[in-house]
């Protein structure tokens, strides 16, 4: 495991922070999540309001260890500081200034460990006119320009997405930044404090559009699913109504010939044989393709197109993903047993190795599940001392 021997101490909650440490855990790092029943991670609150029965929590916190420290107590904060001194990386996404107020800021933690890497994931940065603003993933989408761009061009009102996609961008990017900072540490012998500004990461994910705008190279606006130089290249309706859509993307004349062979009839017209001819007849072709897809399910369109070498896909629902034969065969869908929920099915990750085994997955921890390991083995506290910390509400 490439990150074996690296310990990450995480003061993170909700999606972005845990999605970051999930990647690092998958690469072999030990992740210790500091949480507390006095301030429960929002991600633990699923519909049922039981913090031990949240699927999204046990998914995003796979392989993390949980220690419950009450940071409202002096001793809780002292234990957190001790843990930081035994960690390679500390990552946090408190509101701006909270870490300092807890007495766990860079000045303090870097005295305990000079080569520490401390990562803040602030929304808009530590300084500047709007630095203290409260932001979530969807706010990042709005402020960055992504909401404006993520739309069908014919629709004036910006839509963006109901998702919190920026949280996942920021989470995976933060994991990459930590790997890069570990390399820097190993080269330079020194740690550092990283203010990973979430807005900065979202702009980076739209790099080409940002560079086009910043240098006035091209107009930057919503484009939807179409591209200027290829037809068909869009989403098409299928037989099952609004839950059933497919995508088809034809890049070459040969691919069009294959698709036209499947569709037959009007699709065979010679004037559609060239890309220029198809671009000129975009509406007509989209109509022909849409009439063909409307009589089939997205799965049928997908398999029929792929069988003749045409790029096509199902606009997959959660059910499609859960029942996908490819994802199942690749072991991407993890079937596991949870202490409170019984059998659960969760997604895996984006990468895997050919030779090293995948991590042995553990579901996201019960609250305080690893108190004995963290306080006993990592910090060397005796069982009696741990019992005292629990009875005094320090470990809570």
């Amino acid at each position, binding site marked *: 495991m*490439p990150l*074996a*021997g690296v310990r990450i101490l995480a003061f993170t909650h909700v999606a972005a922070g845990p999605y970051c440490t999930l990647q690092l855990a998958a690469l072999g790092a*030990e992740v210790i999540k500091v949480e507390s029943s006095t301030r429960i991670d929002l991600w633990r609150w699923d519909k049922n309001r039981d913090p031990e029965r949240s*699927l*999204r929590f046990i998914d995003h916190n796979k392989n993390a260890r949980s220690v419950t420290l009450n940071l409202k107590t002096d001793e809780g904060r002292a234990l957190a500081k001790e843990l930081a001194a*035994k960690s390679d990386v500390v990552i946090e996404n408190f509101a701006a200034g909270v870490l300092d107020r807890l007495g766990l800021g860079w000045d303090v933690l870097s005295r305990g460990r000079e080569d520490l890497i401390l990562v803040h994931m602030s929304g808009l940065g530590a300084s500047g006119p709007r630095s203290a*603003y409260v*932001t979530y993933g*969807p*706010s990042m989408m709005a*402020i960055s*320009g*992504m*909401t*404006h761009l993520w739309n069908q061009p014919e629709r004036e*009102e*910006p*839509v963006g*997405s109901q*998702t919190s*996609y920026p949280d*996942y961008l920021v989470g995976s990017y933060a994991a990459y*930044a930590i*790997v*890069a900072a*570990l*390399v820097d*540490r*190993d*080269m330079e012998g020194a740690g550092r404090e990283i203010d*990973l500004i979430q807005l900065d990461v979202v*702009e980076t994910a*739209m*790099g*080409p*559009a*940002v*560079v086009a705008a*910043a240098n006035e*190279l091209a107009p930057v606006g919503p484009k939807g*699913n179409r591209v200027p130089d290829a037809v068909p290249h*869009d*989403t*098409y309706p299928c037989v099952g109504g609004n839950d059933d*859509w497919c*995508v088809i*993307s034809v890049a070459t004349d040969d691919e069009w010939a294959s698709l036209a062979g499947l569709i037959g009839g009007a699709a065979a017209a010679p004037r559609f044989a060239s890309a220029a001819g198809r671009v000129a007849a975009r509406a007509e072709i989209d109509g022909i393709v849409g009439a063909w897809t409307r009589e089939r399910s997205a799965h049928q369109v997908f398999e029929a197109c792929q069988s003749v070498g045409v*790029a096509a*896909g199902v606009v997959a629902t959660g*059910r*499609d993903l859960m029942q996908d034969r*490819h994802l199942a065969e*690749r072991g991407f869908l993890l079937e596991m047993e949870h202490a409170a929920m019984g059998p659960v099915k969760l997604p895996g*990750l*984006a*990468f895997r*190795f*050919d030779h090293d085994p995948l991590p042995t997955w553990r579901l996201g921890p019960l609250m305080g599940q690893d108190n004995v390991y963290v306080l006993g*083995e990592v910090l060397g506290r005796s069982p009696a001392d741990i019992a005292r910390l629990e009875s005094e509400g320090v470990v809570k």
Partner: protein
Amino acid sequence: MTAQAGGGASGTTRPPAITSRPRVLEISSPITAAAGRFLADAGAEVVKVEAPTPGVAAPAVGEALALRLYRDTDKRSITIDLASAAGRAVLRRLAPNFDIVLESGEPGWLASIDAGWDALHAANPGLTLASITPFGQWGPYSHYKADDLVVFAMGGMMFVSGVPELPPVIAPCEQGFVAGGIHAAMAALACWRATRLRGSPGEWIDVSLVEALAAQENTITNFKGGSDFTRREGSQHRNGNPGRVFRCKDGYVHLLIQHDEQVWARFVAWLGNPPELQGEGFETLLARRSKADIITETTARILLTRTREEIFDGGQEAHLPIAAVFSITEALADPQVVHMNVLERVPGGGAAGPAEAGYRTLRPPFQRGRSLPARRPAPTPGQDTEAVLAELGLGADEIAQLRRDGVV
């Protein structure tokens, strides 16, 4: 994992355990170029292998130029014709000199030109190969074709994006490639670090773009059986009331009021305590869900009377998660973004056209506050062919012959 993980507390800085940055060969495609961008941001030396264009290539303009300037700043470019036997021989000779190779060919393609994992690993056991493809290296769909549109659809992100009355819609800027690129760069850099620190062998990393997207957004865990899965609802957030984009006097804003009862109370006060939102039934998020229509209508009516700036700054002053909806141009001009200094100037000299005079691109987000070497302008295709081949030990005669034969 043992209690020693992470080492003990240290009072001294360590001697450097790694002494050079990774050398990366990007067998170039829109997919690998995204991963190569991230590695270059961490200081890796990235060489792009591109296909030679016959005759004089027209310089990129417009969006294509923006793409090149963003993705390829700091990289060097060599052109090799990988369709020819001689070009493939050059690739086989070059590749083992690198620490990380990025490729996105159809599974089996690299092996078919004798430069697959087995050959590369035998030639250089410390080399890490990142294969980044739509569906991964194996499995029933591994040979299926897909571009960004197909990947975004198959990964489950498209179905939950867009308004119900229009077709589902893709995110801007090839997010499937971005997600795959981040994960590939992360895994490859971690593997390379392990080879340097511990002498571990290199790895073959299999990154699936579809899986990179399917792991996100709880699309899978939100499926509760039957037809109970998340559907697209425009900008309406699952757990927010209000939680969507609203029109205001001079533009649009985004509001997300979720669980916290104090936030709800502050929100109602900030709206001016409208009578529609008083009384019973607003106590909890769950209760407010059944009042979603009246909450949304009332919010929409009041916000129409205020400007975007008033709402953004005034809402935040009340500690409410309220955001302006900016275009990218507006975002770049925003005082906070200007203060953050997200852009930096790259000197001219690279890709022809406007780039000759220099241009502005994004500063790597995690390098904030560090002094880094000056950035190298994005190269024209093949600009560094001679230099790179010479560094890797090819003689001047050999290079000249390859050029005459149209191989490079």
